[in-house]
């Protein structure tokens, strides 16, 4: 009701304004409900005054028959109401799902390392469903209350305008009290939902890591932390119960007090010329129509309304918006697949560069520094590197030393804090859009539900002939799997594939693509050494520039040159050069070669200063 509501309000108005026709249709059908309410009291009054009380029972029964018909007609109108409801609710759900998908994809693409977030499934299924159900409930209840109230007020007005004078003040006062409780109740409800979510998250981590909790002997602190969260939720629930009690009072004020007032003033009303039938009709409106409608309204607005607000706020607010919206806001990226351009501000020699393929582009890094946060130490510091066109470079070094960061920088996924990166003479910028001449195959191979053909030609914008698909499959060693899966047009179920099989598919995809610069970031780590050798050989024979981040040190032997990253320093050279120049490389190569293992002693990884 505070900030989230304020933020949601304009969007909600836009949503409804775009659906004016549906809203009007819904209102039209609901008018039949008003007619039903109107006749429920009016019919009773007339049946009594003109029928049963005057002994003319036929007229009395006729009035009641009319009111029964109105009930059935109102019921039939329900079909139209639900059609209108679907036209309001389903678009809301569609738009929420679109936003969740767009936002999580945008975020994942911006921060690939954080992408594996299972909460997105809950947002996509549970939370959009909560929004759908709550919104539908609210529309139904609010609509029902409004049209019931309209029917009852019109009925009272046509029976005797004086009645409104008695009924309206307490009804309005009760509604105002109820509206006043909405804001604090919404706050408590939000606190409750938040506490519930925190508790689930905590239970989830404990359930996932039970072994670790016990092994760490941390049962006591873990239980205490859970007790704290349990108490938080219980406190929120107790406060909610208090507000529910206040809501009961509001209901009493709005629904019950008018009944009492009507009775108290009845002698006076009768003196003003009102009949017994009119008084009975008025009481019918109050007890049979308004009281139940108020009851449902107050229950639904209190809980479903808040739930909807909370879920909508969670689903629709976040850093990323629709990509359609942001794409136009960004400066237009330079067309990637035209002839290489030279940045206007660059002082680089303006030479007519050769088109990238088939030799492959030159990759140049000049004094590149990169850190993951302003307070973090740089992962790469003043790195200079040139990879010649068509060269095969292997990057080695301990885990976490910045190998993946290097490939991400060259691929344009990250932007260096200082320095410059050029591919084929063109500066690389983060978020510079799709860039077909270079592709990056990460450790986590991407395979999607679809045919094998779709998966393999994923990086070929113009598709690829079957013969090319087969050549690439055979080259990287995917041939056998293609047969096993039932050919190129077999449907893939990624869950049934092993990590190694996924990597083979990703490798064949890269091999098939027209890219002239291929970055393999531990893309073969789930293959056995023989399969890895075959795949790497296939890429070495493929024309173009190749940068491989090695998972196994054996990859280094297949390279033209090797880059050794060691935190503070980077050393580049051939295998033989590095054996002489880099102690770290000697260690790595040594631990790869069996026989040079010495128990505990002799190796000197520790002599290298690590990142300051």
């Amino acid at each position, binding site marked *: 009701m505070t900030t989230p509501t304020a933020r949601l309000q304009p969007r909600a108005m836009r949503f409804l304004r775009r659906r004016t026709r549906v809203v009007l249709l819904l209102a039209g059908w609901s008018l039949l409900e008003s007619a039903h309410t109107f006749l429920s009291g009016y019919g009773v009054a007339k*049946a*009594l005054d003109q029928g*049963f*009380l005057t002994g003319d*029972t036929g007229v009395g*029964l006729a009035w*009641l028959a009319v*009111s029964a018909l109105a*009930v059935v007609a109102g*019921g*039939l109108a329900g*079909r139209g109401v639900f059609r209108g409801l*679907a036209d309001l609710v389903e678009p809301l*759900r569609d738009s929420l799902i679109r936003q969740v998908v767009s936002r*999580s*994809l945008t975020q*994942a*693409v*911006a921060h*690939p390392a954080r*992408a594996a977030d299972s909460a997105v*499934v809950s947002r*996509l*299924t549970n939370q959009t469903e909560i929004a*759908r159900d709550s919104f539908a409930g609210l529309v139904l209840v609010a609509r029902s209350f409004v049209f019931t109230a309209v029917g009852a007020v019109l009925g009272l007005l046509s029976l005797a305008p004086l009645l409104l004078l008695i009924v309206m003040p307490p009804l309005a006062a009760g509604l105002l009290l109820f509206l006043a409780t909405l804001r604090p109740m919404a706050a408590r409800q939000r606190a409750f939902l938040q506490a519930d979510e925190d*508790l689930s998250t905590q239970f989830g981590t404990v*359930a*996932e890591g039970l*072994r670790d909790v016990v092994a*760490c*002997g941390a049962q*006591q602190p*873990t*239980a205490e932390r*859970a007790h704290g969260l*349990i108490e938080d939720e219980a406190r929120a*629930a107790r406060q909610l119960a208090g507000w529910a*009690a206040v809501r009961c009072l509001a209901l009493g004020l709005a629904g019950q007090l008018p009944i009492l007032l009507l*009775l108290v003033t009845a002698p006076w009303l009768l003196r003003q010329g009102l009949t017994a039938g009119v*008084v*009975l009709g008025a009481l019918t409106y109050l*007890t*049979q129509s308004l009281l139940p409608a108020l009851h449902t309204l107050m229950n639904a607005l209190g809980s479903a309304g808040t739930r909807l607000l909370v879920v909508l706020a969670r689903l629709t607010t976040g850093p990323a918006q629709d990509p359609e919206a942001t794409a136009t806001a960004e400066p237009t990226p330079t067309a*990637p697949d035209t002839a290489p351009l030279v940045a206007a501000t660059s002082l680089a020699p303006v030479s007519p560069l050769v088109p990238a393929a088939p030799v492959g582009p030159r990759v140049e890094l000049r004094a590149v520094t990169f850190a*993951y946060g302003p307070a*973090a*130490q740089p992962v790469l510091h003043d790195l200079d590197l040139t990879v010649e066109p068509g060269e095969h470079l292997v990057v080695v070094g*301990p*885990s976490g030393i910045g190998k993946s960061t290097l490939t991400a920088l060259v691929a344009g996924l990250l932007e260096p804090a200082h320095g410059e990166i050029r591919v084929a003479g063109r500066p690389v910028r983060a978020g510079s859009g799709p860039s077909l001449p270079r592709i*990056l195959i990460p450790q*986590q191979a*991407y395979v*999607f*539900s679809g045919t094998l053909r779709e998966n393999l030609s994923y990086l070929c914008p113009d598709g690829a002939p079957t013969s090319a698909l087969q050549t690439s499959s055979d080259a990287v060693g995917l041939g056998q799997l293609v047969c096993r899966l039932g050919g190129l047009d077999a449907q893939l179920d990624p869950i049934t594939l*092993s990590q190694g099989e996924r990597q083979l598919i990703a490798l064949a995809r890269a091999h098939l693509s027209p890219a002239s610069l291929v970055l393999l*970031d531990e893309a073969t780590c789930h293959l056995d050494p023989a399969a890895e050798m075959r795949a790497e050989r296939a890429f070495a024979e493929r024309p173009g520039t190749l940068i491989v981040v090695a998972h196994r040190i054996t990859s280094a032997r297949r390279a033209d040159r090797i880059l050794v990253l060691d935190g503070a320093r980077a050393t580049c050279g051939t295998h033989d050069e590095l054996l002489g120049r880099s102690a*770290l490389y000697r260690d*790595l190569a040594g631990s790869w070669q069996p026989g040079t293992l010495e128990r*505990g002693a002799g*190796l000197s990884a520790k002599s290298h200063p690590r990142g300051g």
Partner: protein
Amino acid sequence: MPRTPGPPSAARRRPDAGVRSVLTGAFRHSPARATAACLFSVLSAASAVALPAVLGHTLDLVLGVRPGLHGALALCAALLVAEVFLDALVALTGGVTTARSTAWLRRRGINHLMSLAPHRVVDRFTPGDLVTRLTGNAADAGTAPTTAATGLAALVTPVGSLIALALTDIWLAAVFLAGLPLLTRLLRVFARGSSDSVRRYQHAQADIATRLVEALGGARTIAAAGTAERERARVLAPLPELGAQGRQMWQVYGRAVVGSSILVPLLTTSVLAVGGLRLAYGGLSVGELLAASRYAALTAGLGGVMGQLNTLVRSRAAAHRIGELLALPAAAHGSRPLPADGCGRLELQGVTVVRGGAPALRGIDLVVPGGTIMAVVGHSGSGKSLLAAVAGRLTEPDSGQVLLDGVPLGEADPSQLRREIGYAFERPALFGATVGAAIGFGPYEPPAHAIEAAARAAGADSFVRLLPDGYRTPLAGSPLSGGEVQRLGLARAFAHAGRLLILDDATSSLDSVTELHVSRALMHDVRTGSRLLIAHRVSSAARADLVAWMENGRLRAVAPHDRLWADADYRAVFAHTDGSDSRTAA
């Protein structure tokens, strides 16, 4: 072997015993509140039943201008106000009782969970299932005391109203009772029609979720290829189908709702019609007609009792699911202290562990002399991880016993045991708000310098310093690789190192250099004691003092690596293990 109450006997005794103890326990936790809720709700129902008759009587007095009007009006006012305030009290006490019961059930659940041997839980429940039991099921079961307490009132209103209707006019009660089944059947015909749109709807929804999860898993590929827009379209492809099935669902639901919404007004109208006829012939007053129509509506509220019963049935089922968790026997433990001067001598005597009906470890006799490093090697499925679990009492042996410095683990003081035995795993689960807290997680929080020293020893310090906020970086938002998580798990074990450290494949994702660095730190920088290393790499085995070679759940040999290396079978153990093979955890 310590005696533990077996789960089968408890389960066989009485299947309902667990449910009953959960529900009565929840009730006993707040008896006064539950009783109050019961009392308030019955009083509120009584005034609700009395009100129409009093209203009708008052109306008759008004219309007839007869004496006694003031008294009747006062009674009306009293009943109306009482009903309103009693309802408010029911809402308050009922809500508070539910909150208390739910919290009590959850505390019991988590406390019991913390007393269990982890494998007993993992064997029975998936993590998601466990969370559901402790959150949703506990909330459902927690409503039981309130629902039961207010159940009587839910019955009082409709039954009392029916009796009151009969007392007002027996013919009207007859009309109501005859009309109810007739109309219900009629409306059921009207609402007929089912469809499998719910199933198709959920299918389309799951389809979108699957596509999205796939795409998120391939985020780096998508980012590098710039195909995010294409992915968006691919993920959203099933959306039109979802919308179509959703509309179908509303139609089906609408038909059902419309049917039930006209039942009560039609019944009331027929009661009014017959009542009007009785009125015309002098058998009924206007006030009685008002009371009768109100009683008809209140009696139709009998459906609410079904709702209440439904809630109780759900609570019962939920209580059953919590009872299943509470029925798991807690791990037995003793209180014997470990000798103060012990240096971590670990001894397994005839240890057998049965998994899935077959022995997974058979008669293991093994001694790790205090202060030495023992590597455990063997093919996948040979029982290495189970040996690691049983050595530190994450699992109890089915026969035989494990001793640490001469004290059987089952008799030792459990809190001391956990201080003295540390574990690091291949895939550790990390806890704590920040990266530093994740390392400090344990029976006690080590000082900051100890945490950093442990991180240095585990080769984690370098990458932690690269994180945006160093050790204070929130754990939740940190992009950590498998190898980094593994090193944080190692640091956690190092920070709390006692006399025995068990490393269950805890360096598998580390590159050769980091692993070497860690194993050297393990020898020099971490508190001395015995080490049990489950290893896949030949280098780890080579650096250990002794190697225990496992084969099919048995110990094949215990000897230094150099001596075993001569055996071709031994060398074959390392043939296919280059850090990334998949293993089945025992």
